[in-house]
């Protein structure tokens, strides 16, 4: 299995994302959703600026379980696993470009995997272009495309941004947004850490959406609160008569808005199209807020592809710590990769 990419694609991923920041790494140190029994931040050599990369010893992760469920496979790992970064980070450290820095992460990660008696190291969620570079530098035991991250680059005018959507879908989207407005649906925004009731409602919607898509809840209140406490965290929600119809916990970084976790009240879907309303509002406000990119997150493939969101496959590279188990894990990941590819296909 090879990962094809063009050098032109590299440019989009050469800067650290919000998930590479010390603030995110610190917030995640207090998150509780995953069972992580050890963690460490490693200082990476071979980068122009000092870079710190977190690695975790993962015993269990609802996000990983969700992928196993989507792929309809049993438990892949017979042992703990070292992950870089957490699977809750949409992007891995794609900004590491030099061979020295990439080798530094893989070597240190494998060393910890051996020390902690883990199955190996999983460098997760590298956009396609970056994954190709990593795989060339350090050939992995196995590679798997776990997900697709969707985004839109924003033009100076909302109308121009919306031109990325096909004519029929664009008109339908606008009609749904207008109808929601006429029904009284409004956009609300708060600093995420300062609105506990709204945050709790959005958390519930996010977990209900997970269940609706056939996987167990992904977020607990402590984890949500930790991420919400980041200075860049904002909560956007569509509200009707004090009832939240859809909400998203977002993070702003480097002129990008990351829609990290959210959900909708499915009872309101047909009448108010709350997700489309929310996205439309965010797109139209993007130029005035200085956002150059909207990161719509992972999952919900059919919806995002229907509305013309750009997607980048997220590759995860597995490095086995023991040759005796390498083949077993490679086979399992290969099956999982094939099934997830089918699952993500519209």
């Amino acid at each position, binding site marked *: 299995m090879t990962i094809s990419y063009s050098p032109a694609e590299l440019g989009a991923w050469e800067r650290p994302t919000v998930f590479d920041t010390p603030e995110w790494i610190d917030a995640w140190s207090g998150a*509780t959703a995953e*069972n992580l*029994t050890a963690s460490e931040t490693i200082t990476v050599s071979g980068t122009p600026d000092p870079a710190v990369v977190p690695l975790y010893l993962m015993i269990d992760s*609802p996000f990983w*379980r969700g992928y196993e*469920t989507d792929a309809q496979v*049993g*438990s892949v790992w017979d042992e703990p696993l070292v992950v870089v970064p957490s699977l809750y980070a949409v992007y891995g450290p794609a900004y590491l470009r030099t061979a020295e820095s990439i080798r530094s992460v893989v070597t240190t990660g494998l060393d910890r995997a051996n020390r902690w008696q883990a199955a190996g190291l999983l460098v997760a969620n590298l956009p396609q272009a970056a994954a190709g570079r990593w795989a060339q530098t350090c050939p992995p035991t196995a590679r798997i495309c776990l997900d697709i991250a969707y985004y839109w680059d924003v033009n100076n005018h909302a109308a121009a941004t919306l031109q990325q959507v096909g004519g029929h879908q664009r008109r339908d989207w606008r009609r749904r947004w207008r109808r929601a407005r006429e029904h009284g649906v409004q956009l609300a925004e708060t600093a995420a850490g300062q609105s506990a009731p709204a945050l709790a409602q959005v958390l519930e919607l996010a977990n209900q959406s997970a269940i609706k898509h056939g996987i167990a809840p992904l977020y*607990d209140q402590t984890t949500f609160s930790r991420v919400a406490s980041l200075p860049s965290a904002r909560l956007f929600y569509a509200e009707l008569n004090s009832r939240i119809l859809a909400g998203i916990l977002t993070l702003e970084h480097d002129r990008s808005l990351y829609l990290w976790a959210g959900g909708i009240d499915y009872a309101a879907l047909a009448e108010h199209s709350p997700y489309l309303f929310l996205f439309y509002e965010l797109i139209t406000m993007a130029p005035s807020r200085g956002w150059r990119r909207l990161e719509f997150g992972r999952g919900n493939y059919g919806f995002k592809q229907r509305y013309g969101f750009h997607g980048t496959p997220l590759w995860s590279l597995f490095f086995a710590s023991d040759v005796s188990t390498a083949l077993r894990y490679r086979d399992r990941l290969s099956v999982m990769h094939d099934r997830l590819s089918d699952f993500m296909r519209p």
Partner: protein
Amino acid sequence: MNSADRQFDSILTRSCALTTSTTDYIEWGEKILQYLTVTWSGLATSPVPSASDAYDALARQMRADGDLAPEQVDHFLNSWFTSADTNPNWLRESAERLLLRLRPWFALWVGFIRWVLTWSQCRKFDQVVFLGRDGLPLYAAACGLQFQSSRLQLRVADVPRSLLESPLLKEHLAASADFTRNTAVVDSGCYGTAVTRVVKHVRDLREDNDSIAVMFFASRNPRIFGYLNQLMSWHYLADCSGVPDHRGPFDFTIYACDVLESLPKPYRIVSTGTQIHREPTDFASFVLSLRIYAELARYARLGARGDFTEAARSASELYSLFTRPGTEQGGVRSLLTAPAPKAPPTPPALMRLGITGIAPQSDVFGIDAG
């Protein structure tokens, strides 16, 4: 009931009623854990154990309880318990992960109890007795729904299987609740071994069938009402075209009962030969079980959810996850990989369990004569 047992009742009730002035969830959760940690230290007169010692003790306790097979205990704990001694936040983090995995069940449990309490009030029952220890989460939900403000009394009566033949049981039940009142008995469910004893005890006091009702969350006895069985019945009708060996709605019912019964417990019941009393379980069982009850009560207290529609929706969604292929290790089954091992009564013994003519099961086929 001795003073130590009353103390446990008080801790149970207090845990379910804990509120703080803060709206910060993390702070609220930490305050509860602090309270429970101090309480356990006082009851057990032991220092708080390390994470690894707490894990070992909890695993031992769960194996001794026998609700799960030994390998299920390991799987159950590994998905959420932090046993690393180097992590100072192991208790809080473990509690949060366990709650994350249990929250999808809350609407169903609260929906069941809302129905129980509403039904009991409408049918002029004075008292609802929850059978310990498996019924304790349901008692917590009832506390959260604040039906105590009504004339309905909520009680817990421990009826451990090991004491079913004990001569002390009758006296113990009499001390737990006033069974001369019209009483609805609630339990997690299954075959009805314990509840049959309770009903017989009540029958010794009063002979009229109208003075007692029995409600199970999930029933495997045709003479005992099962709430989840009723919720799942339309799935049974809808799914009859499925392949014969596929996991069906009533397999989910059994699984749902297993989840409820496999939760940690705050106390164990001990018989000394002359009396029955409660003792605190190991640190993690005690603290985490009461943390679950506190959260469940808070959910019931704060949320408008937990009505019939919500419970039915939750049951359908959880069933959908349960039947999804490949979810043995993931999804809703991440807590338990398979149904817990059962020791069903022999057919003749099963025939003797449960009592005919007791509501609400007696209502299911209609109450009109003719």
